[in-house]
């Protein structure tokens, strides 16, 4: 009798486990804050795209400015040298 009862309980439990497993999920009880979402969904693409395009412009402009600055210095040196040569030639004995 007791053995039969145990087998019946075990049978009911075995039948209940899959039934419990296939229960539909309950309704959403709370909203999940956006900070807990995966990183791929947190990152908007537009700022990255704009940053990349802006960097191209900034890098090229800085390079052009750097060349211009060096060119200005070389030209100033050339002018100074020409003045020095002109002075020494003007003051040289004939």
């Amino acid at each position, binding site marked *: 009798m007791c053995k039969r009862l145990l087998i019946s309980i075990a049978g009911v439990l075995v039948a209940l486990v899959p039934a419990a497993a296939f229960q539909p999920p309950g309704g959403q009880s709370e909203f999940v804050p956006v900070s807990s979402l995966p990183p791929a969904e947190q990152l908007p693409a537009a700022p990255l795209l704009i940053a990349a395009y802006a960097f191209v412009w900034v890098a090229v402009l800085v390079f052009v400015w750097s*060349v211009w600055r060096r060119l200005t210095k070389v030209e100033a040196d050339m002018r100074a040298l020409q003045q020095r040569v002109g002075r020494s030639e003007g003051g040289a004995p004939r």
Partner: protein
Amino acid sequence: MRKYFVPLTIVVAAMFAYAPVMIANADYEVTMGLVQKIFYFHVPSWFAMFTAVFICGGASALFLFKRDPRFDRVAASAGEIAVLFGLIGLVTGPLWGRKAWGVWWQWDARLTMALLVELIFIGYLLVRNYGGPGSDKLAAAMAIFGTANVPFVYVSVNIWRTIHPKTTVVPTLKAGMFGAFWFSVAAFMLLLVLLMTLRLGLERQRALLDELYLAEDDHV
């Protein structure tokens, strides 16, 4: 070349101003979406970088064999521009990777080798600027060594397992992406020509100044 400088500047500025319109109208990539549009100036910047590297390497080899300082001036200009375009590629790539892969940087074969080539050319500039007398020949040898790395950077994605897109991406571009991509490539290549002209002008002026100093020394 000087008389073409102003028209070329206008054309390049116009192309770079219009490029975002073409890129915005290009098709979206199915998995990456908007961030994939970085591709339209990331890849052309590497095209320009590799072209500048080949100019630098070729001119350095000619300088070593012929000892003509004009080749050295071309190499010095191209080396600096290679570093500029390499920097653009190395900054725009991680901005793309952060969204596409979830990380800024990955030590895989393509990224590591690209960084290595950039570092070799930064080293090239440092040797040129601070190496003292005779450093032009040492720098030329470095440039040839750096140039030899470029084919390996290009094929690295096909040889090793990497997360970087493969070399088949560009040849298989669909019509909706093809026009914007090759327009950007043309804009970057013209920018390379423009910057080379500008930078070579500086090298020519420096050579002239050196000649003037030497003439002054002889005069004294």
